[in-house]
């Protein structure tokens, strides 16, 4: 039971990262590698602030701001610097690694007994793992609500249109460069926030904690899509969070099968690869079914 509640809590927090990634990967339609630098950046800023006595709420907010900065850097390199987006993300990700080391002073900093969002106020009275679930749920609900609201504004629609058809968007007077920068900033802001929250949950920040986060986020998005199929935009955001929880449960299952945590990255990649190939399998499957039906009918 403890394992399951812990998994759900983790899934919710990782869901925030997946929501951020959804903006760049699904709406703007490009792979943003900045993620792997933004996530530890958010964590480093948050942990370092808390260790220096900053209020955990403010520290969490700072992790969001930190993410927005890396997003802005990638966005500017991409739009104004005309660097291909994949490379722009990798440049930011690599550069921010050194920044993280500077902020933390060493590779790994623990929170020790400092106050975090998870052990202050009412949350500390909850049973084990429930503070994480409660906090994750609260953040996930707020973010899904705000994102859904934003995507339904004129600006949000222009943002969606930019990812959908850049040419058309420009011809309709949408400044697509600004939309991409804005999208990357919000996206990475959420990823930084996820980094801050997960660092508080785990009790430490590590410069290497970003490795593989891209795959985790994408897995959540794809699992959500595979499980729920066609949905409205708002429902799809919820599906991303649910996908994140499902993904964590699959990992838990794998762990129960006797694999070690060292195998996680390999397993993550395999799960994502399978999920991404599922539509292909389904198509083949359907075609077979159709042929069968065709033969059976008189």
């Amino acid at each position, binding site marked *: 039971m403890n394992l399951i509640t812990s998994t759900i809590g983790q899934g919710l927090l990782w869901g925030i990262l997946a929501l951020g990634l959804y903006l760049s990967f699904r709406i703007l339609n490009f792979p943003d590698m900045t993620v792997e630098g933004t996530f530890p950046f958010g964590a480093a800023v948050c942990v370092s602030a808390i260790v220096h006595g900053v209020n955990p709420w403010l520290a969490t907010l700072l992790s969001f701001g930190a993410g927005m900065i890396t997003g802005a850097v990638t966005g500017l390199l991409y739009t104004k610097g005309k660097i291909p987006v994949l490379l722009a993300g990798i440049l930011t990700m690599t550069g921010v690694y050194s920044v993280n080391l500077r902020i933390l002073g060493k590779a790994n900093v623990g929170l020790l007994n400092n106050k975090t969002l998870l052990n202050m106020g009412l949350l500390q009275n909850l049973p084990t793992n429930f503070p994480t679930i409660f906090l994750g749920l609260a953040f996930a609900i707020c973010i899904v609500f705000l994102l859904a609201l934003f995507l339904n504004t*004129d600006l949000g*629609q222009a943002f969606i249109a930019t990812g959908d058809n850049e040419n058309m968007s420009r011809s309709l007077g949408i400044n697509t460069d600004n939309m991409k920068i804005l999208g990357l900033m919000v996206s990475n802001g959420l990823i930084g926030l996820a980094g801050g929250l997960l660092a508080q949950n785990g009790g430490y920040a590590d410069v290497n904690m970003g490795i593989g986060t891209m795959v985790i986020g994408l897995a959540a998005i794809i699992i959500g899509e595979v499980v729920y199929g066609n949905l409205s935009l708002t429902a799809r955001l919820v599906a991303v969070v649910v996908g994140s929880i499902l993904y964590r449960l699959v990992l838990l299952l794998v762990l129960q099968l006797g694999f070690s945590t060292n195998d996680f990255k390999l397993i993550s990649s395999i799960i994502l690869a399978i999920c991404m190939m599922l539509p292909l399998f389904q198509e083949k499957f359907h075609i077979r079914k159709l042929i069968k039906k065709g033969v059976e009918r008189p």
Partner: protein
Amino acid sequence: MSKLELKHITTTVNAGTSEEKQILKDINLTLNDGDFVTLLGTNGAGKSTLLNVINGSLFPTNGEILLDGKNLTNLSEVKRAKYISQVFQDPKMGTAPRMTVAENFLLATKRGQRRGLKLRGLDKHLEMFSRETSQLPNGLNQRLNTFVGALSGGQRQTLSFLMATINRPNLLLLDEHTAALDPNTSRELLELTDKVVREQKLTCVMITHQLKDALKYGNRTVILKDGQVVLDVSGDKRKKMSEDDILQFFAN
């Protein structure tokens, strides 16, 4: 009354290299208010380049562009969208496939306007969209909530055209907008184009490769050859011209 003025427009590509080439050579063209110009020319004559210079996706090497007396020469494509709308040749280029027909319309109603954090208000516009599409033969009004990616090429292009004209543009640019469609659909869209341009008294430039259409539609025909205007005709003189007369301007 002059609407659009192109003064000494020159565009050079690959300047400073051995590949240097002038696409447009000192083009001077003035469109009057309400002119519906059909633009002809062989491939590589510079028709699309001229349209790109007007819409701002390409800046001329030399020359000035004025619309309603306002100098647009240094304005970006995004800024010019307030005044100029266009329909591309490829139906996929003018619409957003993962958004619904109504959402595409809504984007177009705000062409060139500031887009802020106000809720989009899709429901308020649905009636208008439904009215705008009701007389069309292709059933677009039944598909307002369909994702555009699921529409046929003809429906998508009709949608692109309606999006370009839903807010009256000061200038409408059509870049072979019916070339990718089957003959019937192409005919329907050309008729719709003609009707809307007349009703709204739009100033319009339409590129076409169909000589018949070039003479049938509009009030003026311009032929480009090697980056220069070789024919600019309207009125009675144009009415007397046959397709063979036009064809002579294509010969070397």
